């Protein structure tokens, strides 16, 4: 089984994100970066599937030289090799999906696993676009019934399963009112939700081994993709600062304020 997984470089949510005064972007200086946590869950699921069914996990990232750090992280977790699409300019979800489409057509995996969204822009679109561009089936928001403390999780059992004939995947999806099970013909695109698995830690031997795993360099030109953005970011702004709360002397005042000021009861 060959699985292509993504590893987007995103701002570490633990660093303090500040919007530039002119609203053109965020202040990059001093920021830390990491692999998109949903992508990391995708890498983990890919590794579990390959541990069960044999095969190969190929990890792909798009960006400047610095995204090699995220590729190495996935390689240290156990991915077999990496594809780096070297591109430093602006990119929107159409461009990303178009590049991933070409990489997918080149690699011909059975399954592409992506994070449901990346925690920088939170757009939640690339997986769906990619499936559409490829004309493949898609199962978004992959999750599972078992808890993170379950035996399945401890034993690193993949939650995405193959059907008996091996021609389709069975995916439990998170939907608004619970979980829905879906079967999807292979090849397919799966996007991961938070409760699919807990990604393994990169081990020190894994980090040392990752140094010698190959990273293939591609470019949008080589892949024949025009990545001129269709979407333009006009302005970024910080959310308004939260106002301090008030204390009320008694329940009657509280109810009065909820009814007449907040108008919620």
């Amino acid at each position, binding site marked *: 089984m060959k699985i292509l997984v993504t590893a987007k470089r995103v701002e570490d949510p633990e660093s303090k994100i500040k919007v530039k005064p002119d609203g053109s972007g965020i202040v990059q200086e001093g920021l830390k970066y990491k692999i998109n946590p949903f992508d990391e869950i995708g890498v983990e699921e890919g590794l579990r599937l390959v541990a069960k069914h044999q095969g190969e996990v190929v990890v792909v990232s798009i960006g400047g030289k610095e995204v090699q750090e995220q590729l190495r992280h996935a390689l240290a977790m156990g991915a077999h090799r990496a594809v780096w699409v070297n591109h430093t300019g602006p990119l929107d979800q159409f461009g990303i999906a178009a590049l991933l489409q070409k990489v997918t057509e080149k690699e011909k995996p059975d399954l592409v696993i992506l994070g449901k969204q990346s925690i920088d822009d939170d757009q939640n679109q690339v997986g769906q676009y990619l499936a559409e561009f490829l004309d493949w089936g898609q199962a978004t928001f992959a999750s599972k019934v078992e808890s993170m403390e379950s035996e399945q999780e401890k034993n690193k059992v993949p939650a995405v399963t193959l059907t008996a004939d091996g021609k389709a995947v069975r995916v439990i999806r998170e939907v608004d009112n619970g979980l829905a099970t879906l079967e999807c013909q292979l090849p397919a695109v799966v996007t991961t939700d938070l409760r699919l698995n807990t990604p393994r830690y*990169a*081990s*020190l*031997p894994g*980090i040392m081994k990752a140094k010698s795993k190959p990273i293939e360099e591609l470019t949008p030109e080589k892949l024949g993709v025009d990545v001129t953005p269709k979407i333009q970011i006009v302005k970024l702004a910080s959310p308004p600062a939260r106002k301090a709360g008030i204390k009320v002397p008694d329940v009657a005042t509280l109810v009065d304020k909820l009814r007449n000021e907040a108008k919620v009861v």
Partner: protein
Amino acid sequence: MEFQLTEDQRALQQAARKYAREVVRPKAAHYDETATFPRDLLATAFELGLLNMAIPAEYGGVGLSHLDQTIVAEELSWGCAGVATSIIANDLANLPIILHGTEDQKKRLLGHFAEKLKFSSFCLTEPEAGSDVANMQTTARREGDEYVINGAKCFITNGGHAEQYTVFATVDKAKRHKGITCFVVEGRPAGLTPSKHENKMGQRASDTVSLTFEDVRVPVANRIGEEGQGFAIAMATLDNSRPLTAMFSVGIARAALEHSMEYASQRKTFGKPIIEHQAIQFMIADMAMNTHAARMLTYESAWLLDQGQRNTLQSSYAKSFAADMAMKVATDAVQVYGGYGYIKEYPVEKLMRDAKLIQVYEGTSQVQRLVIAKELFR
């Protein structure tokens, strides 16, 4: 000169930091309180390759450079210095084999540490031979193809849980340091008896015991180096491990600094957060400055080893400066917290207790200064 970590070093740092933050920190207070052996934390450390970092890759270890080991050590100690001491104890015990073992000894005595979780103890200190190593009383008597060891060791890390012991004993007390010889005792033979776990002030998660040796037999094949080389082997081992203990201080100090910054931003007196008072700003600035200075000294002492150079002077600079620095920084962290700092529900009094041990073990701050002076007049 390069003053930034490589991509690989950042990856190692992140891996160790994740372990320290997500695995060690949530349980650090528990193991400090109960002074029980943190086997679960050490098992995870083993899975991640954090145990046995120094064992070369050809014998199944990770084979990290000295500089890389210090980068990892800071993170481990930031998580909990007691757990870090227990993690590094294997490397300390195995260093004599790594540095001076024969090919056969390395294969036999190092290889199995990569296969399953096992502990090894470095047994040098005795009740009458701490700083004064040459006063060693534990003896090794040759009988045919074996040596017979008798005596007592104290303050042995992981000694109650180890399945291999690197033991220093003298073949001739009259020869003082020239009689000291290094042996590896495999398993837990009859006659090797650990005491109960010492009830320590700090670093309470690390197991510390006394050991008695009563006619413990070791094959000659397990003697590391020649008879009388043990003192040099012990000193070379400590030259190698000193950057790590120095970096433990940095980990403690960084934890103290971070806690202090967080608390000082929240705690208000006289109508404003205490960080807006200059008295607190000065303390925190000193904490940050000294923590970083110790880190730089330590990096240099480890880098020298990686260049194949002698680092006795620089590693003693690093260890004594860093240990004394951590004690001061942790004490100041308690000061920043005020009365709350003295209470165990807050994290900083543990750091103060943990830091104290680093001024004492693996060569006291005073012995480091003796070494420094001796090196300067060499």
